[in-house]
Structure formats: structure tokens, C-alpha cells
């Protein structure tokens, strides 16, 4: 049976079409071959290098996170969220092919990020799409001495493609520099490995700091990692202490290492610390590190030094009593006493008593014989085994101290000290080893603050508010704060570096805030 001419033609065309397709496929494969590594275009020695993991999907997840609900400043929060949720104007499947697993960012301007260089590896489809993008769009060709740059005037971005690597920058010279790197000028493989190290972070990177940069006077570089999930934001950083700042941090961190920390006392702001040093040394070194003029060794020394020719002063007695205590220390702001003469924060803390330095509260110098019972002299109540100094007002303005088990309980409020001492300070340890643990309970902080401030609003004494406007504003603050469950900061240091972790845990919208979560 003979075929018709048309069938013959079809029979002849099909193989040709297949061949053509195969040829086209081969060309496409050739054109989209992975001929370059992203690292080739990252200049070595850039001040910051950052890698974003799965940027397209990651950004979407981040934009949906409840963490943003906890951001107190509504305007700026909205601005950021708007940016995150902005429609890029490009279909998502295209973005997924243009920005694949990682996006590298590098640059020198750590303040404005004006010279940021973005590098990513496209998929083959993405590469092909980029090839056809200049046709029918506002992309202009920029020959650039044969470097074949592209310019997008509408967003003033320059980019170039090498193999499947897409390199972008706002600055043409930055892009040209990236494209003309010699072998030794690009980031080392080890550095790239470090950047790419597997992890669950959304963003990780390193920043080299100059002395004039924020924190530059203290740290020479900071490595960081950030992850934002549905209800949690997690940030961790490792900061290398600047050589010039070693003197400043040395006294605090010299020989330091992470220690087991005690569970803090319950309150709206809780702190537990252990620097491996007694309070006296922590006091002085903390002042040095934080550059607080009156927190220094000389001041402590002045307080503690006994005058040769007179009875010990109160300052001497207190400093010599508590100076050797530690190294485990806890301090908590339990809230505000809004019923006191004026609203006062209530601080209470514990200092671990070493076996060799058990303080004797009874050794406090007695008040002068002529002193009235209400005069502001330190007194020891033998029945209660409690030392206190009545100031003006009631018990929340009466600093006190009492020994409870292995700790000396101290506080600005006699009542709070008695309560903690009678309940016995918690003995459990936190799961993390570190030097400092700080936990904030934002709903409680705001609630207590609002109650205290309202007393002033009742008398028109709160700047910018009358009672009505304050009550309205306070509702907003409390609603915002209720979205955050807790903020936890954990820090530890060594001679040369400081490690800090920050966790922000939020409540899902509509969920009732958890009353208290154990640290």
C-alpha cells in the first residue's frame, strides 16, 4: 500500500521536527549548562556576606509569621510587612526558577547596604526565561566592554548571567567588579562552605565591622543566623571581640566559660547570671564592659574600705558582706507596687553564699541610740532574721536582705524579700549553659506599666495623654504585648568572643496568652 503524498510529507517532516526539537533541546541544555559557580563572583574581603536559604518560599513563610504581630511599632511593622507581602510582579513559578535554593548577598556598606551584590543560581528554565526576558520587556542591553550587562531602568538594577548564575547589583561598577574577578580575588571555598553550611536558618552571614560602625568599637566581626517560624523568631550571633576592646571586656570575660545557670525568680523581667566570679569582681568588670562610670572597682573599693578611726559605715558593711557572694546571681523585676506612695518597681534577687563567706546580717552597725524607729538606718530584726532600711513610704520602699538556704535574698521591697525567702528560691537549673539568661514577659511588663502610668494619667500628669486617650492607647499596647509570649536572651562569653541567642515566642492571633511558661 502506497501512502498518499501528504502522508509521505508528514512521514518525512516528523523525524525532522523531532530532530529539530532534539537540536533545540541540546542547544537549550548547552545554553543552560552550569558553567560557573556562584562563588566565583563573590569578591573576597567584602565587609558582609550573607546567604538566604530558599528565599522565595522562605520570604512567604516569614511574611505569614505571627512574630510580626509582636512588633510594637505599628507603622514600621506595616511597612516591613508590606515589603514582604508585596507582589513582585513576576509569577511565582518564574521567581522559583530565577531564585533557587540560595541567594548570596555581599557588600561593604554595612549602614545603608547601597552596594549590595546579589548572586543566585537559576534553574535551567530560569536561565532560558532570562534569555528571552530582554525581548518585549524594559530590559536594556549594556555592552560594558563585552561583559554584556543588562539594565532594568524601572528598578535601576544591573545584572548579568554567567552560565546559570544570576548576578545583580544596584551599582554598575560593583557588578563589573564581580564579573571581572580573578581566581584569587573571589571568596575562598572554605568561606563559601561556611556560608552554605547546612542549617534551618532563613539567613546566615558574617559582617566585618570597622571601628566607626555600630558595635564596631567592641567587635571586629559578627557571624549570625536568623530563623523566623510561625510563632518564633530565633537569632544567634557569635561576635569576635575587637583586639582594642579586649581591655574593656577582659575583666568580665577573662577565663570565662558557660556555666550552669539557676532558674530565675519569677517576675516580669527575670535574670540569672554566672560569670564564675564573685559579685565584687562582676560589679567592677561589668562597669568597665558597659562603660558605666560609677560601676568600677575604685568605687567598690571606696565603699568597702574601712576607715581606720571610725565604726564601719553602712556602705562598708553591705559591700563587704555581699562582695564575696556569687558567682551565681539572680535578679528579677517582680512588677510595680502601684499602691506605694508613688508607683515603684519591685526588684528582688539572690546571691549564692559561698561556704567561706557566709554573711552575718546581725553584724550590721546598729542605728544611733537617739534614732527613732522610723529613721532611715539599717536595722536587723532578730525575730525575722531580716535586715532592712526603711526609706519613705511603705514596705516597697524598704530595701531588705535575708538568708534563705544557700542564697542571700536581697530586694528593694521588704515584703518581696520575705516572700521569696519563705518560699525558698528555686533550686533547679536552666537547660542551657551560659553566663547570662534574661527573660521578658511582655504582656506582664505592659500590664504593670499601664497600671502604674494610669495613676499619673488620672491627674493629667502623663505627657501627651489625658485619662481617656491613655486608656485607649493602653488597650492597644496590651493587645500588642499579649501577642508575645516571652523574649529570652542567652549570652555567654570567652576571652575572645561573645555568643548571644535571642528567642521571641509569640501567640497565634486569637489565642489566649499563656499565663507563664517555665524558662
Amino acid at each position, binding site marked *: 500500500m502506497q501512502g498518499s503524498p501528504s502522508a509521505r510529507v508528514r512521514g518525512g517532516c516528523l523525524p525532522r521536527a523531532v530532530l529539530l526539537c532534539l537540536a533545540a533541546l541540546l542547544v537549550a541544555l548547552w545554553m543552560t549548562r552550569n558553567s560557573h559557580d556562584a562563588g566565583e563572583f563573590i569578591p573576597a574581603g567584602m565587609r558582609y556576606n550573607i546567604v538566604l536559604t530558599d528565599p522565595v518560599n522562605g520570604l512567604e513563610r516569614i511574611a505569614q509569621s505571627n512574630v510580626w504581630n509582636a512588633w510594637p511599632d505599628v507603622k514600621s511593622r506595616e511597612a516591613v510587612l508590606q515589603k514582604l507581602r508585596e507582589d513582585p510582579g513576576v509569577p511565582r513559578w518564574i521567581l522559583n526558577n530565577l531564585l533557587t535554593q540560595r541567594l548570596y548577598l555581599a557588600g561593604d556598606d554595612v549602614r545603608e547596604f547601597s552596594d549590595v551584590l546579589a548572586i543566585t543560581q537559576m534553574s535551567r528554565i530560569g536561565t532560558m526565561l532570562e534569555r528571552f526576558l530582554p525581548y518585549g520587556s524594559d530590559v536594556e542591553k549594556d555592552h560594558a566592554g563585552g561583559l554584556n550587562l543588562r539594565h532594568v531602568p524601572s528598578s535601576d538594577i544591573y545584572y548579568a548571567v554567567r552560565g546559570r548564575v544570576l548576578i545583580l547589583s544596584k551599582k554598575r561598577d560593583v557588578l563589573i567588579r564581580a564579573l571581572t574577578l580573578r581566581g584569587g580575588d573571589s571568596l575562598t571555598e572554605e568561606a563559601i562552605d561556611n556560608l552554605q553550611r547546612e542549617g534551618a536558618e532563613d539567613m546566615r552571614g558574617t559582617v566585618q565591622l570597622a571601628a566607626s560602625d555600630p558595635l564596631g568599637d567592641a567587635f571586629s566581626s559578627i557571624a549570625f543566623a536568623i530563623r523566623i517560624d510561625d510563632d518564633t523568631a530565633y537569632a544567634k550571633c557569635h561576635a569576635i571581640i575587637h583586639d582594642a576592646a579586649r581591655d574593656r571586656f577582659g575583666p568580665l570575660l577573662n577565663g570565662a566559660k558557660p556555666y550552669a545557670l539557676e532558674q530565675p525568680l519569677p517576675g516580669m523581667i527575670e535574670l540569672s547570671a554566672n560569670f564564675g566570679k564573685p559579685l565584687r569582681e562582676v560589679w567592677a568588670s561589668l562597669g568597665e564592659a558597659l562603660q558605666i562610670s560609677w560601676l568600677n572597682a575604685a568605687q567598690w573599693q571606696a565603699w568597702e574600705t574601712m576607715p581606720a578611726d571610725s565604726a564601719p559605715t553602712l556602705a562598708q558593711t553591705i559591700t563587704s558582706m555581699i562582695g564575696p557572694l556569687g558567682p551565681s546571681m539572680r535578679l528579677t523585676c517582680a512588677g510595680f507596687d502601684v*499602691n506605694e*506612695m508613688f508607683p515603684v518597681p519591685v526588684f528582688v534577687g539572690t546571691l549564692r553564699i559561698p561556704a567561706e563567706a557566709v554573711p552575718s546580717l546581725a553584724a550590721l552597725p546598729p542605728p544611733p541610740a537617739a534614732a527613732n524607729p*522610723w529613721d532611715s538606718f539599717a536595722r536587723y530584726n532578730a525575730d525575722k532574721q531580716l535586715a532592712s532600711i526603711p526609706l519613705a*513610704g511603705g514596705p516597697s520602699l524598704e530595701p531588705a536582705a535575708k538568708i534563705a538556704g544557700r542564697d542571700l535574698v536581697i530586694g528593694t521591697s521588704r515584703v518581696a524579700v520575705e516572700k521569696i525567702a519563705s518560699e525558698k528560691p528555686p533550686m533547679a537549673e536552666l537547660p542551657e549553659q551560659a553566663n547570662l539568661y534574661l527573660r521578658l514577659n511582655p504582656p506582664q511588663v505592659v500590664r504593670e506599666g499601664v497600671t502604674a502610668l494610669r*495613676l499619673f494619667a488620672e491627674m*493629667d*500628669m*502623663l505627657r*501627651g495623654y489625658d485619662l481617656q486617650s491613655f486608656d485607649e492607647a493602653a488597650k492597644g499596647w496590651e493587645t500588642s504585648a499579649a501577642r508575645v509570649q516571652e523574649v529570652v536572651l542567652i549570652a555567654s562569653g570567652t576571652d575572645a568572643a561573645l555568643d548571644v541567642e535571642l528567642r521571641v515566642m509569640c501567640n497565634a492571633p486569637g489565642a489566649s496568652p499563656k499565663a507563664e511558661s517555665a524558662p
Partner: protein
Amino acid sequence: MTNREKSFRSNRIAVCCLALCLIASVRARAFEAGAAKVEITPPLETPLNGYGDRQGRGAIAVHDPVWARSLFISDGTTSVLLVNTDLCVINRELRDAVLKLAPAEVPKENIFLTATHTHSAQGGMSHLLVYRTVSGRFMPEVLESTAQKIAESMQSALASRKRATIGFDVTSQDNLTENRRVPGGPVDPQIGVIRVDDSDGNTIAIIGNMAAHPTTVEGADKFSISADYPGVFYNAIEAQSAPGCVAMFLNGAEGNQRPANPEKLSGWAHTEWVGNQLAAKVMEVASKITGVEAQLHVQRSTPELPRTIASSFVPATTDLATLEVDDLLLTFVPGEPCVEIGLELRRMAQARGYKAQLTVGLANDHLLYFVPRELYSTPSYECGMNMYGPAIDRWLYREFDALMSKGKPATSKPPAPESAAKIDIENGTGLKVQGSRYAIGYQRGAALADQLKEAYANKIVSRCEDGSWIPSSGMWTYAPSFLDLTPVALWRLSIGARPMLATLSNETLDTLEGIADGAGLPFDAVWLMQCAPTIAAGESIEALYQSPFCTMVAITGERAGSDQVLVGRNFDWIDAENPVVVDADPENGMRYVQVGFSWTAGAYTGMNEAGLAVAIERVESAGLPALNGPPIDMIMQEALMRDRSVAEVLTRLETVPHLRGYHVLIADAIPENARVVELGESRVTRVPSSGILLGANFPPTSVTDADYRYRRIDTLLRAKRSFESDALARIMSDKEPGRAAQQTILNAQTRHSVVMEPRFKRIHLAFPDENGKLGTPLTISLRKTTP
């Protein structure tokens, strides 16, 4: 049964019914009474109320217990609970808590809560921060427990009620109380006594009433709980009475009264002496009282209080009440009235037909002190704590007058004065006001209300808000920046400014009160505005004034032409404010014209119907104005209202030695009679030379802007032998070519330009427009228009 028998029988039934009804009626109207006391002593460590120097620290001992004592009385129609507590005050938190728990059988408005004002009982019951400085930390548990015990005493009194009689009388004392501010000053000699007996003649309650602070406890004992002398009084009365008798004490108009101490006793001995002496007096009277089944009558009102500069801390309305027991009137005052007010309330009551009147202070509310107007400028604690202005005494008289049921009210709220008439003048505001001094002020205040409120906001409130008038020392510096100290600062400033009212006449106070009421501002706000330039001068004169800030001149004799004396004056002021002229024609006194601004109640420039012309200018070299007396413009205002000649003004100035920092030009209708008084460290009075008297002399070489102005005016005056008023007005509007800033006679800061003719009692004035060009002059002829 015959018809007659039937009729007789039905009549008998009717008579019986009527008799039964009458008996029932009499039975229902029987007078009943019951009394009870419940101890309200708080736990140790509770802060005690009354003395700020305790700094809120708690009690360390109980010297004697404190009590709530209640008396229930009912005439069958009206039931009353009279509660006497050994507390410093009945504050609103406590009142509300007690009334919530009070027995329902007695209407809330018939419950009278009073405090003896002991300074040694529990505080801790004030929620508002400002009161905690004296009453200590807020202790809701103490508030609740005290309220519960007071309510318990009320319940017990009610439960113990029985058929009773009540009687009253008064006696007097001359050695138990004294005026704590003025040695030998006014006291209330009266001791009031009320006795309540049951039908068997057993005494249910004896009440004493006297006006004196229970402040005999002193020194270390100030931290001991005590009822003070009322506690001794209770014990003495109850010891001398049948068991079950409850002694009660109602304090009187004790604002400036304290227990006397003629025997120079100290400590508790003094307390015992006062309490026992009072008890002896009361028992002496009580033993002679014969009780009756009296009629009770309660009147109550909740009026609006006068405006206060401390509105952030004290309420705008309060609770006033009276209780009438036949011919006895008890007047319940919600605070601490000074004795003068108590005595006047008594005079008013007696004039209305009451046999006796007892003022009961510290009742139902606590609005701090009430001082009579004549004490308002006294730098005393009572005056400082008087929150509602100098008219509070008349307010109390008027409000209590309305609550008396006997006789006819002698006072009533005067109708608002008529509106001021407008005077047409370019570039400013002119007002024609007349009537009483108050009416003159009111008309002015009402017509310029918006401007006055704006001036108050700009000159006083904003200076507190921006911190420029907040002290930079002491506790003020510890306040965190989120706190706005303005409410406290305004209150403290007003207290500080009140002594500057001293020596001013009642007429001036009337005018100031009128301005305040007309403008809807507190009195202290208007007065602070008058003091603002003086206060501001003390801190930064450069920012507010030029030196000197005016130009003024008198020409006399032949040089003044037919006038014989002419006064020219340009008033320079750094702030471009709306100039105001007020032509005031009081019903009693001289008519006068005063030129200034909306807020200036004093006279910077003015003339009266006697032809007395006054003008003042600030001269820095004469020193800083002092704050220990009225500002110069208020003194000149008094001169315009009362003085007719230069001699009288000179005499007046001798009575106010505190004045410094100003030159005053005065002239009258007597030919060549003009003077400039330089009020500096020493006083110099200058007279015209060659018919010219300049406000300030200028040195041979001009240094300041004023030197240029005065040199120019001197040159222009010497250029001609004789001037009429229009010629002088032209000189006052001179702008010397080539001179800058404030060096010309008429300059950018001139706010009014005036020529005064004392002989013809005419004043010509013009206000500049925003470009500094004077508007059409207005002439006011000062002849009296009202009889």
C-alpha cells in the same frame, strides 16, 4: 334601735377610729434614737494621715484606740445617721465604700459622715497619688476594713434604737482653743452640746462640738495611733455617764484653730488636759439639757464648686448638707473652714431664726481648706491648701443659705452682669464697662474670654509644659521626662503668687474675680497672668523685655500750651498681642481708662476722671522686680481707682517698698505737676526740667535703644516752645530716619501710643497695625457718666 341611738353609735365608732388613728399617728412619729461605737484601730505599720513629715511611714504603737461612733435618730418621718470617726478626713474613697455598706433603712442622703481630724489615725485610704504624700501608701485592705467597721457601728446604732428625746445647748470657752496663725486672732468660743436620752432617762449619746485641730500629739509619739484629745473626751464623758452612753465629737470650723495650752503642758499631758477640759464643759451643759421629741429636717445639695487651678487634683462638685433638730442647725462643711467662715455661718443662721448653729467640718468629703477672702493672700498653709479661689467663703455662705429652711435667704447667686459695650478703635479692642467692680471685671472677662484663655495657655501653662517655669532643683529634677508636671506646677505657682495680692484693695479683688468669672477661668489663673511678667523677669529678662521697654514723657508749663501738663507714652512689648482699652465706670468710684492687653488687669497706662495720669516702664538697671508684693501695674490700677493727685500716688508708693525695677510717671490736673519715680534699690523722684520730664535720663553718648529714643524725644521737644496734644502725638509717632530696631520712638514693638491731657481729662490713644503704622486715634473724655 332608734335613729338617734344609731347615730350616736356610729359617732362613737367614728370617734374611736379617729382616736386610734391619732394614737397610731403619734406612735409613728415617735422620736427614736440609738448609738453605738466600733473600734477601727488599724494594724501596726499602717501609715497615719495628717503629717507630711511622716513620709508615709507606718504606725509603730497604739496609744489609744480609734473609733467609729454612730448615732441614729428618727422623728418618725426623717431618719438620720450621724457618724463620728476618729479619722483625719472623710475622703471620697472611704465615703463611697461606707455608703455601699450602710444600712438601707436610712436614705443615703441622710447619712452624715464626719471625721474628728485626728492626725494619728489610719491613712492609706487615698487612691489619688497626690494625697499619698501625706496619707501614705494606698492600702485597700485598710480602706475596706475601716469602711466595714464604720458600717457596723451604723448598723448597731440602728439596731439599738428606742424611744428617745433630744436636746441641745451651747456654752463658751476662752482657754481651750486659739488661732494658730495670728496670736490673739479670731477663735470660736462656742462649745455645742447635744444630748440624747431614752424614755427612761438613760443617756444614749452626748455630742460635743468645738473648733480645734486634734494635733496635740507630737515628737516621737506621732507614730502612735491615737484619737488625740477627742479620745480623752470620749473616755471622760462615758466615765461620767450611764453605761451604754456613747460620747461623740464633731469638730467645727477648725481650719486655723488649734488647742490652746495655757498650762504649757507637753506630750500626752496636753492631750489629756484639752480632752478633760472639753468633757467637763460639755458635761456641765449636758446635765442641764432637757430633751424633747424634736423634728428633724435634712437638706442636701451637690453644687458646682468655683473654678480651681488645681482641677487635676480636686473635684468640681461636692456634697453640702444641713441637719435641723428643731431650732438647732448643724452645717456640714466638706473640708476645713477657717474660724471666720464658721462664725459667719453662725451669724447667718441666727439671723434666719435658729436658736443655735454648729459648724461641722470635715464632713462627707474633703476639699482641703476654706479660707475667708481677707486671708487669701496670707502666706499660710491654710491659704495654700485653699483650692477654690478667694470667693469660696461667699460660695459657702450662699450655698448654705439656700439649705436653711427657716427665714428667708439673705444671699442668692447674683445674675451675670450685662455685656460690655464695644468702643470702635482701629487695630485693637475697646470696651466700655460699668457697674460694680465685679461687674466691670466680669464684662471685661466675658468680652475677652477667648483672648484671656489663649493668654493663660501661652503665658502660664505652656511655660510649665516646656519646663521653663519648673524648678530646676529639689524633687522636681527627679521626675522622669514622661511626666508632665504642669498640674503640680500651676498649683504651686498659684500658691506662690497669692501673697502678691497682699495690700490690694477689695475693689481690685472684685475686679479680678469678675474677670475670672467672665472669662471662665479660675481666679488663680487670672492672677498668675498679672504676675507673669514679674515672675518671668526673675529668670530671663532678656527673652521677654527690651530695656527699658517703653517711652514716656511729661511736658509741663508753657511748653504744654493750654494743657499745662501733657503726658505722652508709647508702650513697647516684645509679644505682638491684641491691644485693649477699657473705659471703666464703676458705680462707686472714679471712672478710669486703662490701656493694655486682654489679660492685663493692672494699669500700664491709664488715666482717671480726676485727671490722674499714670504710665510705667521697666528699667533693668533699677533691679529685678520683687515677688513679695503686688506687681507695679496692680498698684497703679489701685491708684487709678482711688487717687486723685500725684501726691496721693506718691504716698501710695511709700506703702509698697517691695517695688523695684520700674520707673513710674504720674501727672495730674495741677499745672506743672508731674513726677517720675525711679523704683530701684533706692528711690529717686524727678521733676520736670525746662518743662520736660523724661521717663528715663539718657547718657551723653547713646548706648541702648532707649537712649536713642529719649535723646530724640528730648531734641524734638526742645525744638519748639509750646505743644498741644496733637503735636505731642506726632512726636510719639516719630520714626527717626536711619535708626534701626527699637531705636525709634514709634517702633516695631510699640503696642499702644497714648497722649493724656490731665487738665481736660482726655486721653488720645492709637494702636498700631501689623506693619507698625498707628491707626486712627481714639479720644476718650473722662467725665463721669453714671450718678
